[in-house]
């Protein structure tokens, strides 16, 4: 996902990208500089965590921090243990009062989280750590940092090692073969697809595919004609959250105008759990595996 960068964040990142630091103090607190360059004082033994982003919730749980979670957003539905935690609202519409009321000693946010609300929480004296998640490497780093902050460094390092091994495996397997043309469809009416500089594009390329819409910047609506004309061999589509509608792959398959597209003709169309690719969390490697399986089927 391409996050909505906060202005301050962007300017600071130019200087500080990747130089997140943790200093331990004897007084039982650690000073931590987050991805936005804000210095935060955090208790050495964090006991109550509120996550303001689904990806942070997933990472937190992946490093064994699930029992510490006391608050989450409406969209933090994975893993199942997290879903049982009390919610504070949507990622951009959550209640600041509720967050403060939960008395967390650590609040996790991303650059997509509403920055005004983040300011409010900080003003109330609570430590908020903001992560920037744009690439797979960002995710690894996030996992490691969270492991340190929550005191589960070993789990975190093991997880990163595991994920990067899986990633390397996929990338090496896809190397050398004939490139496969791929289209990633987020919504079918109108055709809303992933172009260049998107997480999906990144995954397609890492999985050894070629995005047929790489000349389009970001996410865009395109005509059916351009799809027919560019004849993708594989289509990957986001499964919508709505349960009632017919499946997006069925709709695409039954669309007469697209009948001549090779991917449709040969039924090489996969559905992706959108959370897998939309959330830059530990499951992104699972997404990459699915992309790879789909592309090299």
């Amino acid at each position, binding site marked *: 996902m391409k996050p909505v960068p906060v202005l301050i964040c962007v300017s600071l990142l130019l200087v500080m990208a990747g130089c997140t630091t943790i200093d331990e103090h004897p007084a039982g607190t650690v000073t931590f500089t987050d991805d936005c360059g804000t210095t935060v004082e955090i208790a050495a033994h964090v006991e109550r965590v509120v996550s303001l982003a689904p990806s942070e919730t997933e990472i937190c749980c992946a490093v064994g921090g699930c029992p510490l979670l006391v608050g989450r957003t409406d969209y933090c539905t994975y893993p199942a243990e997290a879903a049982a935690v009390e919610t504070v609202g949507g990622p951009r519409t959550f209640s600041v009062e509720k967050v403060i009321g939960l008395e967390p000693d650590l609040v996790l946010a991303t650059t997509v989280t509403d920055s005004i609300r983040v300011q409010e929480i900080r003003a109330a004296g609570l430590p908020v750590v903001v992560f920037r998640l744009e690439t797979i490497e960002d995710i690894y780093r996030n996992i490691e940092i969270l492991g340190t902050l929550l005191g589960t460094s070993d789990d975190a390092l093991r997880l990163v090692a595991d994920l990067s091994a899986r990633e390397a495996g996929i990338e090496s397997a896809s190397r050398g073969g004939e490139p496969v043309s791929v289209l990633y469809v987020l919504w079918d*009416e109108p055709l809303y697809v992933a172009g260049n500089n998107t997480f999906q594009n990144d995954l397609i390329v890492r999985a050894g595919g070629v995005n047929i819409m790489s000349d389009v910047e970001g996410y865009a609506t395109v005509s059916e004609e351009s799809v*027919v004309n560019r004849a993708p061999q594989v289509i990957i589509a986001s499964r919508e*959250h709505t349960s009632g509608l017919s499946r997006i792959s069925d709709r695409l398959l039954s669309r*007469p105008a697209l009948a*001549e597209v090779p991917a449709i003709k040969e039924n090489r169309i996969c559905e992706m759990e959108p959370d897998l690719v*939309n959330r830059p969390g530990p499951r992104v490697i699972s997404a990459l595996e699915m992309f790879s399986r789909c592309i090299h089927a």
Partner: protein
Amino acid sequence: MHTRLNGRHVIVILCLVLAAAMLLGVVVGESRISFTRAMAIIGSTFLPIPADWSQSEESIILLIRLPRVILAALVGAALAVCGAVLQSLFRNPMADPFLLGISNGAALGASLVLVTGVGVGVGILGVPLAAFAFGLGTIYIVYELARVGNRVPVTTLLLCGIAVAAFMSAGTSFLLFLSGENLHQIVFWLLGGISGRGWDYVLLLLPFVIGGSVLFFSISRSLNALMFGEESAQYLGIEVESQKKIILVAVSLVTGAAVSVSGIIGFVGLITPHMVRLWIGPDHRILIPVSLLFGAILLVLADLASRVLLAPNELPIGIITALCGAPFFAYLLRRRGREA
């Protein structure tokens, strides 16, 4: 001095322009298919022409461009003709087909389906059917609210329309708020568009546009009389209240059908009739057919622009209609202002 153009000539010329615009729409696109080949592909549907083109080219012409161009023409015609009729009925230059909240109702219906997923089984037509039903329902509510005994005062109707429309759009906004990750689906619907709709939608809209146009043309004399007020029209032997009901029902059906297939495409229904009036005068016997043709031409060209300008990106068509039409309309008004 007001120059009167011969109505029949204007109509014949516009038919030719529409045909040319539609041809252009069929020929121009991302994949380069020559004019003769495009014509041959179309011709092959009813003539025995040997196919020297690929299957993809055939789908692009017959299944993508052709239905799309026809749908653009139908939606443009429907919105323009309904706008013309409502402006006269309400004697209000600000009237457009969405005036009484039909689009707001339709948006709520579509959003409900998109968010909750109700309407399983109707398949691909779930959203348009819900939009259609909610659009008509909205008009019905507005009408019943405004009705005083047997009469429906136009001003009350307008005000009720505003109130109900506000309520409906609040509902849509609430759904947008709740929709979370379905947000973009609703936003796309609200932006309006005729991209990727196919023949199903053409067949859905066609009977409404034909039926509506015939009806509106048949009451063009009444509409002429109604321009000068309801009382005056009644004195000329027009059953104003029943006529009003017929017009409202017809406009609702046609607009509802157009909105349900294309979402909310603004501007065409508001501005086209004005342009036509400035050009050929307010006589509905010409205004109705000319608005119809003009609206069709405008939307076919707007659709063409929407897919060519930033290809392979597609712009929402409503942006094109407003960006090009509004300044042109302002120019027409200024020019007329100087003449007067």
